[in-house]
């Protein structure tokens, strides 16, 4: 890495970010009405890092993930993606909400995979994959289809291109969903419990695709209960509880030698 890459990037907001940080969360709060779900999250995801987020249900890990691509609007704090403040712009010391189209533009570089797949049921598998490139990025149809077929091949489903989602198994649907997110050529992939809705025997195929993606150098934030995956593929592991980051570090360290009581209690209940 050259000197200039190491240097800090001066953002328009005046905050200093290390140049290899793709996501920086600073004191992120989120409340739903009077219920405070996130109570001040500070995190950094470096380029190429695979970060696994674990924790009991209701700990706010999915909400945090959804804050990264602004599916949830922060109540307080800041979140930068690729040096850009997500969802807001700062003018004369005040935050202004971005318009719908501006937020949409920011989201283009962030892929997201959902627990319940959320494939578009009125489109075929290939139709799901090429929809956004054609509609949002104005990629010519033929080119998008060619690229879409490559992606379906990559997730092991080239023969399912013309099939509608309801005729696919959960595992196949999730792999199409991953291909759909990759079609936008994102810099960051968010996974929201991608295997939690799957039959146990289908989990492996999806994890294989994700492992492959991590090996290819994709930056990933993965909310998961798959401790084996976190240990093997993750570069870092974050344990969240009650809207806060309790503990984080290299997965092997956190999993083998948890420092915090709550981490110990959680891990003792999880089989892996």
């Amino acid at each position, binding site marked *: 890495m050259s000197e200039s890459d190491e240097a800090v990037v001066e953002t328009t907001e005046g905050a200093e970010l290390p140049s290899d940080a793709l996501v920086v969360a600073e004191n992120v709060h989120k409340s739903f009405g009077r219920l405070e779900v996130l109570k001040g999250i500070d995190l950094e995801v470096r380029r190429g890092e695979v970060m696994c987020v674990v924790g009991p249900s209701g700990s706010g890990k999915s909400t945090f993930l959804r804050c990264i691509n602004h599916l949830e609007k922060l109540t307080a704090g800041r979140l930068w993606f690729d040096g850009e403040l997500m969802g807001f712009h700062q003018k004369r010391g005040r935050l202004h909400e971005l318009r*719908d189209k501006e937020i949409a533009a920011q*989201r283009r570089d962030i*892929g997201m995979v959902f627990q*319940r797949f959320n494939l*578009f049921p009125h489109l075929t598998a290939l139709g799901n994959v090429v*929809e*956004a490139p054609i*509609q949002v990025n104005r990629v010519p149809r033929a080119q998008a289809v060619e690229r879409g077929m490559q992606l379906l091949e990559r997730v092991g489903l080239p023969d399912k291109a013309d099939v509608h989602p309801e005729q696919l198994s959960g595992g196949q649907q999730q792999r199409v969903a991953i291909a759909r*997110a990759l079609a936008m050529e994102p810099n960051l992939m*968010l996974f929201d419990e991608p295997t939690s809705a799957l039959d146990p025997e289908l989990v492996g195929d999806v994890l294989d695709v994700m492992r492959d993606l991590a090996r290819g150098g994709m930056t990933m934030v993965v909310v998961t209960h798959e401790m084996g995956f976190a240990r093997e593929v993750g570069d870092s592991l974050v344990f969240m509880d009650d809207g806060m980051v309790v503990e984080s570090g290299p997965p092997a360290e956190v999993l083998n030698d948890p420092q915090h009581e709550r981490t110990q209690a959680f891990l003792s209940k999880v089989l892996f």
Partner: protein
Amino acid sequence: MSAVPVRYPERWAAACVVLVLAAMFVHMLFTNEAFNWPFMWDNMFSDPVVRGVGVTLSATVLSMIIGILLGIVLAVMRLSGNPVLVTVAWLYTWFFRGVPRLVLAVLFGNLAILYATIQIGLPFDNYWMPLLGLEGEARFFEIDVRTALSGYMAGLLALALSEGAYMAEIIRAGLQSVDKGQTEAAQALGMNRGRILRRITLPQAMRVVIPPTGNETIAMLKDTALLAYVPVTIELFYQLQAIGTKTYQIFPMLVAACLWYLAITSVLMVGQYFIERRFNPEQRGARIRTVGGRH
């Protein structure tokens, strides 16, 4: 197995009674002079009647097209979250669903009493122009209501505006039936609101929207008969009645009206069956579904 199946003697008895009644009805159709079938047959395809069928069809198609477009706008307003838009959409639906179509048809036929002309310009110009020291009026062009809202236009407007209220409810139900995860997935892909509505939400809402819209179309075809009271003199039912009154052969012409409406609604029902199958992905195969309707 050679077990004796259960017998249902009471069903057989009921079937016999129904058969006898049906036979009596058919016999009456052929023997009662008041039907005057030859007269009906001679007159139900006369030029003004056939032209009336055309008017009925065009009124159905146009009022449904306007109604659907209006319904989309109203449904989006209802779901917009802006209190003014929500209230206006609610009031619109409340009014047009609360007033009978027959009353609306007659009301619109008499709108010229309210406005002799409609002028398009800046609102409240008669108040603010003098305040700014300006003379004259800020009006660009005007429409003579008595010619513009001639019978057909008035009736069409009444039907279309009324239909908009019903379609708004149908489309709203359709949009709300689409899982929230669909919108989120589309947002995550970087699609903006308008594109999500056009490409993701509306196409999925269609599955829920199409069957009741088919019913609405069939109901609308029948409701075009209300145009006779606007009055729209070129319309089918008006023409059939006119022949009936002129010739004192009222009943045959009423039967002719029944047959015409039945024929057209039957064609529409077949169309509805195929459209429903087309928009229902699970039914896209060869599986058959009965044609349902609430009217």
